[in-house]
């Protein structure tokens, strides 16, 4: 277990966002966190990434209890994260955003030539062909912006890669690339935490599935314990989609 939480909880003022959640991240395994909107998924991974501090329970890195003081502490332990809402600096260019916080150096200076090149290459490898890495991130399309965040996390992820709904704004093709990245990271021995609402994305790559509901855990399942249909059913509270399709058709 690289990362582990035991009975972790978090309160915002009067809002109990997370209660008594236990989970683990293993090297070479993908843990999918599933759950409805507002279930507390982002809150949980922000605690893992050091952005938020938990109020109750314990957080363990490599078996030792820690309290991550901030995102830097997590990054220094090789934990790279794609956040759902803390994304990019809109006024800064793509390449500056890409290397933000981990700038390559050349003597004393920031090696801008390398930074530009690597950023362009990594994005192209994701199937995103930004015209100009000098373009401010704020002018990118929603999916392009998300791709930059993913490419960055993949590039810097050393031991754990945390992805909060990375595929939500992506096209089918780009989403496929991201899933392939996740698989590749897993094969390289990284622990991956992957949040998604799409069972078609979760099932192919996931090894363990943590289900959250209104801030509490409904349990953690291994892939062997669960079929794709069961997973979909769990996520949607019933064979919603199929039923829905009939419903939508009928009314036409």
């Amino acid at each position, binding site marked *: 277990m690289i990362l582990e939480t035991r009975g972790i909880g978090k309160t915002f003022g009067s809002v109990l966002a997370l209660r008594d959640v236990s989970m683990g991240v293993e090297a070479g395994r993908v843990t999918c966190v599933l759950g409805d909107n507002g279930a507390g998924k982002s809150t949980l991974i922000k605690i893992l990434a050091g952005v938020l501090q938990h109020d109750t329970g314990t957080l363990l890195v490599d078996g030792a209890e820690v309290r991550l003081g901030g995102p830097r502490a997590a990054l*220094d332990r090789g934990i790279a994260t794609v*956040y759902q809402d*803390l994304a990019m600096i809109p006024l800064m260019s793509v390449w*500056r955003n890409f290397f933000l*916080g981990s*700038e390559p150096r050349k003597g004393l200076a*920031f090696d801008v030539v390398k930074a530009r090149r690597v950023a362009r290459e990594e994005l192209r490898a994701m199937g995103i062909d930004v015209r100009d890495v000098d373009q401010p991130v704020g002018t990118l399309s929603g999916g392009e912006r998300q791709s930059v965040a993913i490419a960055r996390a993949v590039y810097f992820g050393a031991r754990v890669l945390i992805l909060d709904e990375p595929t939500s704004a992506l096209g089918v093709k780009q989403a496929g690339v991201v899933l392939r990245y996740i698989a590749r990271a897993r094969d390289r021995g990284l622990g991956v935490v992957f949040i998604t609402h799409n069972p078609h994305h979760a099932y192919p790559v996931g090894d363990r599935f943590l289900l959250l509901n209104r801030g509490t855990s409904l349990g953690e399942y291994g892939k062997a314990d669960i079929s794709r249909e069961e997973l979909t059913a769990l996520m949607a509270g019933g064979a919603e989609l199929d039923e829905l399709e009939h419903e939508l058709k009928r009314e036409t």
Partner: protein
Amino acid sequence: MTAADERLAHVGLARRLLIRPELGAVVGLVVVFAFFAAQSPVFRSPAGIANWLDPAATLGIMAVAVALLMIGGEFDLSAGVLTGTSGLILVTLATRFGVSVWLAMLAGLVVALAVGYANGLVVTRTRLPSFIVTLGTFLMLQGVNLGVTKAITGTVQVSGLRRAEGFEGASAIFAGTVQIGGTSFRVAILWWILVTAVATWVLMRSKAGNWIFAVGGDEQAARAVGVPAARTKIALFMTTAFAAWLVGSILALRYTSVQANIGIGQEFIYIIAAVIGGCLLTGGYGSAIGAAIGAVIFGMADKGIVFLGWDADWFKLFLGAMLLLATLANRLVRRYAEEVRH
């Protein structure tokens, strides 16, 4: 740079250049210069240029430091008074306590950096807006400047630095003049160029520069990718304090005396120069060269009106109109260059 992309319309070099924040300011500069130079031969003469470049230099040093701070998303209202504090420490120590000028300058530097550090610490710890925190420092320093000066000297000004030990050397370096083509230019101009060059390098070509843009653009997001936001901001406050010390020392050495109320009200002129030079008040965008140019625009407009001999009563009217036009020219050029983008 990238391979040709059919989605990229052809864009001329001129337009590409104009997108840079500082090159918008250059247009304002040219407009204002042309306006005054056309009407006043003295204004465009070497002696005239040396004259209006001098206050632009001291303003420019501060404007550049303040611009960095503003790009980093913070304000420093205490910067103006801090120039006075540094100067007062220098002159008081050197004249009343027999300390050498060099040592007195060092003491001033230590105090200035401590003030900058305190500003930064309070801002990052309490998360109060820096506008309010440095306003507090501004008021407190004003009180300290006046109170301490009166307590030590019995008057509101300290003078007599000329007789202090080490004055000659320090004065030559910080307050001297350089002859260029028969006209003597203030050495402060060189300091200003140096400060601008260093600041530009830091902003564009260093790790720290990346962090400055990031903490000003979106502090939460920057922190999330591991930027040491608090340290960056504290360093920026200390940079401003350093600039205040430099300017305070330059002025103290030049006039060999300091008044207790010096520098009050200047803090806004620094911000104005930075904004004319293209810095965003909300942080995350701007340039050091732009701020330096903003200082020149302000200096030219300020002095140019005197060169033209316009009625002093209406002075501020012209100054206001001039500033508005310069910023507008800057903005229009940038708009043309980048089109509507939101």
